[in-house]
Each structure stands twice: as structure tokens, then as C-alpha cells.
């Protein structure tokens, strides 16, 4: 017919199209009931949505002509047949039918599944749609219930033997409540299933996202690193560097350190160690006990430690360097130790900035102390200490001058 409602209904109910049309036409005879049902179903039934496109909005203004025609038909009938109870009953039955239709239609799980499917294509929309959908769902459900109740109360009021009066209305209310209760009992499992369905879908979506994140990480990092390792398999240094870097990034990913290197001492040290590992293809065994906030002085301590690591990596000729840091109430200390060649402090040229400027000088400027112990053939240990309190800093600055 006009808006394809009969076709939609037929599909929805699973009955032949022609049967629906005949029923509507027959109902049209009873006070334009068919027409009203047609309009109501048109307004309530979901439109068929072409997949991918957003669901078009239903224009409520288009409902007006139907309402007008319906009212006209009803007026005509009441003029033609006189104002009898039959006409009113027809109306009330229509109201009940529409209300029940709304409820029944809303609790159809396949429809909600269809909504969720559409939404899952745009995950950011899904949450919004699901929320608002639930609200309108509840709204329509309650609205349908009210319609049914009003209709039943009316019918009972008209046909009640007491004919008018408070008792008949009271009876009607009881009827309506019992009826709604029945509907509720029938519909409740459906509702429950529907909500469950939605929840399962959401959980599945979250799981899918996690899996995708893991897959992306493995693809971007691990497979890439493995490819690089195969290509550089003759260069042992490079293979070690790649493997170590990948190991570190996987560990970070697994244990998720929460601190940022600019804020926390331990994180800053770990980052410095990671940079040295990457640049010089060595392993830095980092152990940090305790943690503290980063400030300018702590950053200087980290920078000095980094310089010590770089020296060990470049000159000691070893593959592993130990880095140990401890935060105590009154002092921060960092130890960088290698078991490499070692050197004699007196033989380090004045022009070499690494040790004198970047380590010893820097620690002095910030009120700390650097001590270097090294013996030829016995490795090197750099000990850096920094007093924790502000006062000791200023004191340290005085002595440095």
C-alpha cells in the first residue's frame, strides 16, 4: 500500500501479505480501525535500514494526514450510526491493540540485535546508541502499557453490569493491572534475554579490541624485530641490540610502569639505561630501590649516571654493566659498576670532559659527590651520592665554590 506497512507487518508476523491487507481492509470497516492501526504501525515499526547508512529519522508530521482521515472516518460513522457504545468500544479496542503492539514489538530481540550490529561498525557510536536506545525502549514500553491500561479500563467501564460509577472504574483498574501483570510475566524473560544479549555483545567487543591491540603490538614490534634480526644475523652486536630493545619494550608493555621519566627518579634512570643499551648494544642490569620525585638536582644525578654508563659502555669492553640506585630518607645514591678494563684516574687527560665535567663537576654543582674507583684489569665503579634535603644543597654549593 502506501508506506509499505502491510509488507513490513507481514514479514514481521510471518503471515502472507495478502492476509494482512485483507485484515486491515476489514478492520477499516469497524470505525476506521484498520486505518488507525495502519498509521500506528507505520509510526512504530522500524524502517528498513540500508546497511551502512545511518537510520533515517521518521518524520512525525507525516502522521497528521492519517490522524485527520481517521478522525474524519470516526466522525462520519458516529453521524451515520448514531452515538452507540459499539463505536466507543471499537476505539478502545484500537487503543489496546496499539499499546500491545508497541510492547510486543519492542521486546523482539532480533530487532535489538539488528541495532547493535549496526552500531558495532562504528564502536565510538555504540555506547551512545545503546544508552539512548535503552531509554527510548523503556519509554515506549511504559507508553504501550498505559495505552493498554486505559483501553481495558474503558471497556470494563462501558460493559460493567453496574454501568457507571466508581466501582466499575475500580474493577477496570484491577482488570488492567492483572492484564499488565500477565503481559509482564510473558515479556520479562524476553527482556532479560535482550539485555543479556546486549551485554554479551559489548563484552565480546572489548575482548576483540584487546586482541586487536595485542596483535598490532606483535605485528608492529616483535615481527619487525625478528625480521631485522634475520637480516642482520651475521652482526652479533646488532642482533643483541635488537633483541635487548625488544625485550625491554615487551617488559614495559607487560608490567606497564606507570611513572613518567620526567616525574619519577626510577623511571628516569630506567630510561637513561635503556638509551645507553640501545646506543651501545650492552646490557644494563638496573636495580632501583625506592623512588622519589624528579627535580632539577635529581635530573642532574640521572644525567651523571647516564654519563657513567656511557663511559662504561665505550671504554670498559664489557657486555654487562650494573646500575644500582637507592633512595633513602637523607640521601640518593647511584652506583655504576663494570668488570671491564679499568683505568687510572691520573692518566685521564684534562681535556676529557666525560669524567671530570659531566660526572664529578656536575655532582659538585648540585651539592652531591662523585667517587670513582677503578683499577686496571679490575673494572670500574662510579658512586654518585646526592643529599636529599634543600639545606644540604646550598651548603654543598658553598663548599663547591
Amino acid at each position: 500500500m502506501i508506506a509499505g506497512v502491510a509488507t513490513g507487518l507481514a514479514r514481521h508476523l510471518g503471515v502472507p501479505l495478502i492476509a494482512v491487507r485483507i485484515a486491515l481492509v476489514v478492520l477499516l470497516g469497524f470505525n476506521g480501525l484498520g486505518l488507525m492501526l495502519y498509521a500506528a504501525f507505520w509510526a512504530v515499526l522500524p524502517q528498513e535500514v540500508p546497511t551502512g547508512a545511518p537510520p533515517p529519522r521518521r518524520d512525525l508530521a507525516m502522521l497528521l494526514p492519517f490522524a485527520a482521515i481517521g478522525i474524519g472516518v470516526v466522525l462520519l460513522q458516529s453521524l451515520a450510526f448514531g452515538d452507540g457504545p459499539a463505536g466507543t468500544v471499537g476505539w478502545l479496542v484500537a487503543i489496546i491493540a496499539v499499546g500491545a503492539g508497541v510492547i510486543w514489538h519492542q521486546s523482539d530481540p532480533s530487532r535489538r540485535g539488528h541495532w547493535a550490529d549496526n552500531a558495532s561498525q562504528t564502536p565510538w557510536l555504540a555506547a551512545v546508541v545503546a544508552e539512548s536506545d535503552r531509554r527510548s525502549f523503556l519509554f515506549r514500553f511504559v507508553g504501550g502499557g498505559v495505552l493498554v491500561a486505559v483501553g481495558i479500563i474503558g471497556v470494563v467501564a462501558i460493559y460493567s453490569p453496574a454501568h457507571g460509577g466508581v466501582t466499575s472504574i475500580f474493577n477496570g483498574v484491577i482488570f488492567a493491572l492483572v492484564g499488565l501483570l500477565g503481559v509482564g510475566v510473558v515479556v520479562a524473560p524476553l527482556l532479560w534475554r535482550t539485555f543479556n544479549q546486549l551485554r554479551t555483545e559489548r563484552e565480546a567487543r572489548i575482548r576483540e579490541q584487546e586482541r586487536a591491540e595485542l596483535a598490532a603490538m606483535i605485528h608492529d614490534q616483535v615481527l619487525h624485530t625478528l625480521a631485522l634480526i634475520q637480516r642482520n644475523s651475521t652482526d652479533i652486536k646488532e642482533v643483541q641490540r635488537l633483541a635487548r630493545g625488544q625485550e625491554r619494550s615487551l617488559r614495559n608493555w607487560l608490567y606497564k610502569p606507570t611513572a613518567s621519566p620526567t616525574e619519577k627518579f626510577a623511571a628516569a634512570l630506567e630510561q637513561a639505561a635503556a638509551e645507553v643499551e640501545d646506543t651501545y648494544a650492552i646490557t644494563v642490569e638496573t636495580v632501583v630501590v625506592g623512588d622519589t620525585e624528579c627535580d632539577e638536582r635529581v635530573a642532574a644525578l640521572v644525567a651523571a649516571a647516564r654519563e657513567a654508563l656511557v663511559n662504561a659502555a665505550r671504554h670498559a669492553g664489557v657486555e654487562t654493566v650494573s646500575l644500582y640506585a637507592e633512595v633513602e630518607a637523607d640521601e640518593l645514591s647511584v652506583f655504576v659498576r663494570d668488570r671491564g678494563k679499568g683505568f687510572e684516574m691520573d692518566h685521564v687527560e684534562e681535556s676529557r670532559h666525560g669524567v671530570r665535567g659531566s660526572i664529578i663537576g656536575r655532582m659538585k654543582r648540585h651539592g652531591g659527590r662523585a667517587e670513582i674507583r677503578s683499577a686496571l684489569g679490575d673494572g670500574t665503579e662510579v658512586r654518585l651520592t646526592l643529599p636529599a634535603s634543600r639545606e644540604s644543597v646550598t651548603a654543598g654549593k658553598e663548599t663547591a665554590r
Partner: protein
Amino acid sequence: MTDVTGETAARRLTVFLVDDHAMFRAGVRAELGAHVDVVGEASTVAEAIARIGATLPDVVLLDVHMPDGGGRAVLDAMRRSHPNVRFLALSVSDAAEDVIGLIRAGARGYVTKTISPEELAAAIRRVAEGDAVFSPRLAGFVLDAFASRPDVPIADPELDQLTNREREVLRLLARGYAYKEIAKELYISIKTVETHVSNVLRKLQMSNRYELSRWAADRRLV
């Protein structure tokens, strides 16, 4: 604790490998062949429990992460029935709760899988002699867990605190010192260093310190 000392020096130690990665077992077996006798291996918890009981090795090298409960399950099943079998945990994981958990379940040491074969052989010997083996990282964890916190009441000072000497030894361990170097640094004998570390291990296993079960979660890291 010292019932096997002396005897172990004369003969080669027997070692049992528990790890669910066959490739890793093969690697360790090849590396350790020169130093100890690998008398058996197992890839699952159930297999390990059955075969350790049958072979009675000196030391079991125990992987932390395995299906069905991991090294922890093996330890829980074997500790009481076979007190003479020593366990050394070997893992790629540096997560604090794993490490502390294994030690508290009865392992006598913890080393990471990146350890060199010589160091591993030395660690096995040390564990077989009843001493403890701490990797630098484990030493760091312990220092952290036993850090003196003024707001926490000490229930049992004997168990819940480290002595200054023990703390010094742990610090040096964390700094990458070998036992020999620690002994030299502190002017004590290697045996004394070993005693200190064993005492720390005992405290780690017996202490009721709230932090030991809790701190890993607080610091949630490595």
C-alpha cells in the same frame, strides 16, 4: 642446612630441570654438561613432581611460569616430603610478586635466564651446599621490602628487620658484586657473606612483614 657440605665437593652434583620450553631445557643441559650431571627433566608440574621424587637430585632448576600453577605448585608439593632437595628458581620474569612468592614457597634462590653458564653452575653449587643465591634484582626487591618504614609497627624484630651488615651485603649484591668481591669489600670471609645471605633468605621466608605480601601490589613493578 649443612648436612651435605663436604660431600658435594667430592662428587658431581645432580641437577633436575623443570621448564615447559624444550628448547630452553636443551640449552641449559648443553651448557651445564661440563659442570654438573643433569639427571632428568620435566615439562609439566605433574611430571616434575613424579620424577623429582624418583630421581632425588641435589638441585632442581625450577621455571617460575608454567601451566597448572608453575614452579610454585611444584614447590608446594615437594618441600615437605623431600626437604633435602634444593630448589633454584630460574625465570625470565622479573615481576616482584613472582620472585618473592617463589622464595617464600621455599626456593633457595632466584636467578634470571640470562645468567651465564659459569655463574649458573656456581649458583647451583651454592644452593646445593645449603646457601642462598640472590640475583641483583632479587637483592633490590628484598631491600625494598625490608626498607624501614616509620609508620609500620615491627611485630618481630628478629625476623622483620635486616641487620646493618645484611643490608650492606644486599646492597653490594644489588650493585653487581660477586660473593668474593663482597667479602673483600667488607673485610669478611666468603663463608660469612654466605651466612648473611642465608639469614636474609630465612627472614624472607619466615617474616610476617605486611610488605612482603603487600608491597609488590603497591609498587606494582619491577
